């Protein structure tokens, strides 16, 4: 049954981009494209051949594949209720984080490989924000590890018991933080604007300006997968392991749908940050993760 979570995550990864688009369109009074439009776009891209600039090397060609692979492998770690992920071992969340890091690193150096001033700029920004966002994830997961005395995703989520107000607070903050991490990692509002056409303001989009065809298709697929990755983690946070399998399947899908709608809503009614304010925004998220840490210290009585 371990594979069930993986399959569900893949399915939701295909739908999430479409749902975000529809939500945003509805919120601005437009009809919007169908849910499957992003998939059609990806299918179109995948059918096309790649065009490589003559200034690029092999790095640029393997970058998107490694990026995509890293996200898929990371997805194998996401547990599903009482079932472990396909891969699971102690401290796997560290492995998970750096697996995604490898993918990102490849994208950054493949952007630098093009030699374009724009892409270097985007790579520089992406590296900065990824670096800043890393502590949030580790403080959150580390706090859970401290609370439960386990260190794999599966054990962390299985052994959280919602028995006090503080644990509810931890869950609420945890969900919020995972949502925001997903936004930063996927270069969405308020950090970045995936829809913009202005290269100078872009972060992620400008890094993939030179990618085309099959590679671009992979990058777009990876975006959906990354959302599903965090959607899956959020779902695990929320549903109790004791529930029946069917209830869990329903809740998992509902959580992923709501996650996509939430992203759409968050992007509809605000403007993006000034680029210089992004680090402050991410540090603010870090301080929220410290609140989780303090709650855990309070619960475990480690403070005294």
């Amino acid at each position, binding site marked *: 049954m371990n594979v069930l979570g993986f399959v569900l995550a893949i399915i939701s990864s295909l739908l999430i981009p479409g749902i975000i688009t529809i939500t945003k369109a509805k919120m601005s009074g437009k009809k919007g494209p169908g849910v499957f439009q992003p998939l059609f776009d990806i299918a179109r891209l995948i059918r096309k051949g790649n065009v490589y600039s003559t200034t690029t090397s092999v790095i640029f060609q393997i970058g998107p594949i490694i990026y995509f692979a890293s996200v898929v492998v990371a997805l194998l770690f996401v547990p599903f209720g009482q079932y472990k992920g396909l891969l699971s071992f102690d401290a796997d969340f560290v492995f998970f984080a750096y697996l995604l890091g490898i993918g990102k690193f490849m994208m950054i150096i493949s952007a630098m490989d093009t030699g374009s001033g724009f892409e270097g700029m985007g790579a520089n920004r992406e590296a900065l924000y990824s670096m800043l966002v890393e502590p949030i994830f580790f403080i959150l997961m580390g706090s859970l590890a401290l609370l439960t005395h386990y260190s794999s995703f599966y054990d962390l989520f299985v052994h959280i018991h919602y028995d006090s107000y503080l644990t509810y607070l931890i869950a609420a903050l945890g969900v919020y933080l995972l949502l925001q991490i997903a936004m930063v990692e996927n270069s969405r509002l308020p950090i970045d604007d995936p829809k913009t056409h202005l*290269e100078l303001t872009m972060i992620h989009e400008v890094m993939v300006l030179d990618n085309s065809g099959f590679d671009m298709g992979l990058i777009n697929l990876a975006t959906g997968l990354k959302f599903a990755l965090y959607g899956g983690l959020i779902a695990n946070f929320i549903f109790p392991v004791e529930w029946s399998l069917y209830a869990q399947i329903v809740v998992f899908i509902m959580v992923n749908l709501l996650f996509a709608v939430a992203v759409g809503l968050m992007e509809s009614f*605000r*403007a993006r940050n000034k680029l210089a304010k992004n680090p402050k925004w991410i540090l603010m998220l870090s301080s929220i993760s410290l609140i989780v840490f303090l709650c855990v210290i309070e619960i475990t009585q480690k403070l005294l």
Partner: protein
Amino acid sequence: MTKDIENTLEIKNGQAVNLSEIPVLEYQEFHALVLDLLQAEDVHCVNYYAFPHNDILRFICCLADDRTQGIYLLSHIMATGGGLLKLESLTKYIDALHIYEREIWENFGIEFEGHPWLKPVRFPHDRYNGDLKVNDYPFYKVESEELHEVGVGPIHAGVIEPGHFRFTCNGEMVLHLEIQLGWQHRGVERLLLEKPKLLQRTILAESIAGDTTIGHTLAFARVMEGLSGISVNSRLDAERAIALELERIAIHTGDISALCTDVAYQLGTAVFGALRTPLINYTQDWCGNRFGKGLIRTGGSHYSLTDELIQRLRNLLDDFEWRFKEMADKAYSLVSVENRFDEIGTVTNRQAKLIGTVGMAARMSGVKRDIRHSHPFASFSDIPYVPVMLEKGDVYARYYLRRLEIEESINYIRKVLDNKRYFLSEATSPVPETNLNLSPVSISVSMVEGWRGEICHCAVTDEQGKIIHYKVKDPSMHNWKALELSLRDLEISDFPINNKSYNLSYCGYDL
């Protein structure tokens, strides 16, 4: 001062005078007089150009005085035969004149000694030296290991109009921005001379800048009316003012929408974008073109504002006003939007005066430049327009000024419509002229406040009443410099919203 003015010829906006009435001065005298007149805050140069005629290069300088509603015309001449031509630069003392001297230098090879920034205006290199290519444009360079250059364009990310932007950056910070234009030089001024028919010329004037169709065509029509001595009736004046203000409201609304796009505020993008449509659709109903092509014609109009159209205009404005207010109340108080626009790209009052910004770009930093107010034309002389002013000069000021100007323009259109004198009379607008008899050896200067700012057209005729020189000046000529200054010490990622907040014309500059 009084003695100075005796050496000039004072005319009103849109007036034509005989060329021989303009005193021809020695360059020393001309130089001193221009500097002296420009000492006053209320005087600014609206045009300074040269044209060759009978082996003589004649320079005309038009200085607008906001106090007297007059335009001082000064002139000096120069023999063109051979040799290196040199003049002492005026820009050395008055920065705002840089663009005029650069243009004259580019067109006639006259070296302005002491000009700090003698660079091509529309050509990528010295136009007389065919060996030089685009790459040889003399960009300002800073030698440093730490700085890097970012070149953007000439193809715009949104594929609008072409312009090349060269940033000298320290990491994300911009130290200096230089803008190189001229990528779509169409030879408008030359074409205006080559095409003999009035209709051809009018259509050319409509295409000087597609988003300022009404503004430029109105300036053109008034130059022609001035030269042929036609005076239009007050009803036509009112219709023209309404068309001009409608254009302003429509473009400003579209720009607010575009500003929202650039900061990813999608509700604003969608709603303001949708609000613009009924406005330009109304213009289409009025004259058959959404941007007002065909509406402004010399001496008359093919599309009189009928009672039915007036009623629909009133309904449109009522409807637009509350919808606009509802959305603007949100968009102008949203913290994330304010946060994005505030304190970015500031052009101080002092800088604005130095570089001589005009129109919106001047009013946003407290410089009172509004032709509707200072040199009224059309119905603006009957029904005064009070310019809206802001002090701060940042992106938010430009964003906010658009809202205030929209509200003011709506009020103004209502005032015109309410004025019984214009529309209750049975008189319709006269039929436009097709053949003009232009007065010989004359010059006419016409200024119009387009939505970007002051548009100035000048035409000169010869002994047969044939136009021998036509000069167009779009407000963007001055305001591009303001964009360059805005970017100083700003993050490079803030460039797009600054650029959009000015929304300057590339083709109006390139001509």
